[in-house]
């Protein structure tokens, strides 16, 4: 192993909570202090060791970034995540939005592009919004905004019609992966809009409810499929619909 990298055990293998993934990191850091180590979800420093606190597959990038790919269903808010929420209540200055985490989050009335006191989007209870988490701290109510850091909407805002479905966070990552296959394959066969929230919620809209049902099924089934299987499955579903 090159001297400027960290040596972790179990890379690309399954780890369980409590597994020591790397030892005596701090002492080694003195030697390789040029490169900053980055720990992603599921890993934490415990004295000099790095231990796993989730189960899943340990992944790495450039030998400096490490994280655990795990497939849970419950979402934990992280700052700057883009999520799909459901409006559950309306307060004096903000909407209360359910994002599937343990606590609801707040969406201020003015957190939309170009919103003013007089001119702001009106949302009803049960409406969907696609937004970005601007505040996500432990033990605090998360805050949602529908603008990017420059104040532009950038695709965020209320979602109309269509259908929303929930799935595991692992599938979310697969859908958002630039190499993710299922949305591309589906896009060649059908015309539809979709929004994937990092909180395990995906919204789909198409011309007809038949298409929407089919797209939702294809996405749900794709979770444990290979590329060729996905292609086959989409074509099978599309054939079935034409008959």
């Amino acid at each position: 192993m090159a001297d400027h990298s960290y040596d972790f055990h179990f890379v690309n293998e399954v780890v369980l909570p409590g597994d020591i993934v790397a030892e005596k990191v701090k002492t080694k850091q003195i030697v390789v202090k040029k490169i900053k180590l980055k720990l992603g979800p599921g890993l934490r420093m415990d004295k000099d060791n790095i231990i796993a606190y989730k189960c899943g597959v340990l992944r790495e990038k450039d030998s400096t970034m490490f994280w655990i790919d795990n497939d849970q269903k419950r979402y934990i808010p992280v700052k700057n995540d883009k999520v799909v929420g459901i409006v559950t209540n309306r307060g004096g200055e903000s909407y209360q939005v359910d994002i599937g985490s343990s606590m609801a989050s707040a969406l201020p009335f003015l957190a939309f592009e170009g919103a003013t006191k007089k001119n702001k989007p009106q949302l009803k209870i049960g409406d969907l919004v696609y937004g970005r988490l601007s505040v996500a701290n432990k033990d605090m109510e998360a805050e949602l905004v529908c603008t990017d850091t420059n104040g532009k909407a950038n695709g965020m805002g209320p979602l109309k019609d269509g259908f929303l479905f929930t799935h595991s966070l692992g599938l979310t990552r697969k859908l958002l992966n630039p190499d993710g296959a299922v949305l591309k394959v589906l896009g060649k066969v059908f015309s539809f809009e979709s929004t994937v929230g990092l909180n395990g919620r995906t919204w789909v809209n198409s011309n007809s409810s038949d298409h929407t049902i089919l797209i939702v099924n294809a996405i749900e089934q794709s979770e444990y499929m290979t590329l060729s299987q996905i292609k086959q499955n989409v074509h099978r579903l599309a054939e079935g619909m034409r008959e």
Partner: protein
Amino acid sequence: MKNSKVVISSCEKDFILSCVRSGKRMDRRHTYDYRKLQISFGVDRGHCEVQLGKTRVLAQVSSEVVCPPPNRPSEGQLFFNLELSPMASPAYETGRLSEHTVELNRLLERVYKQSQCIDVESLCIVTGEKVWSIRVDVTVLDDGGNIIDCASIATITALSHFRRPDVSVSGEDVTIYSIEERDPVPLSVHHIPIYVTFAFYDNGALLLVDPTDREESVMDGQMMIAMNVDREICAVQMNGGLSLEADQVLRCSQISAVKVADITELIHKALRVDAEARWEHEIKTYCGG
């Protein structure tokens, strides 16, 4: 009905309702279709796991000898305990007995105690002193809708699969034999009642058999009919305060008769396959040892 913490958006509601109205279902089933049912057994007797679509329920039967209450000195006891684990859905919490849990427990208790499908008198060892107490623990592992059907199938299959230790009485002495000494004996199951659930929409105008969790979340009301293979109705429950036409109810009972016949056959088949596997295993160990 499920008193859910999980919020549902209006677009989901509208979409599912429009699908129901046009006779389409998300999983491409027809209105009267049941989902795929899988029954599997554990190593122990009386351990049964049933999967109905995405819904998964585990039932475990156990037995112990207890002193009967004075008003029923010669009857064995039956206990049912259903738990909704938080693993099944974020709507469920541990330690809190929700209305939904109580309802499901009552439904199970009502059909399996009051329809007398288990012969409780055969569970008596010494009148007024010792009887068998049979306990069924039902755990919902995943909620994909229609828990009660799945739980009832798991419960009755586990009861049919269970074997209690053999006992003998001579004078005052009661001997309980271990599995090695004497083959354990099955409970006497007279008949197999199973719940079939119907979900209603548009004030009872539309109905669906075996609703999924999504379909349950937008329904107006539901009806569960427990029936056995001889078309005897063992329990009926209606939720949601709907008023249905008489022939609608009759139609439901006819549908449930067909479904119950199919499911009972599946249960018998699963039990037979398991019995054969055990028999083969036994022969192997006997010949090998």
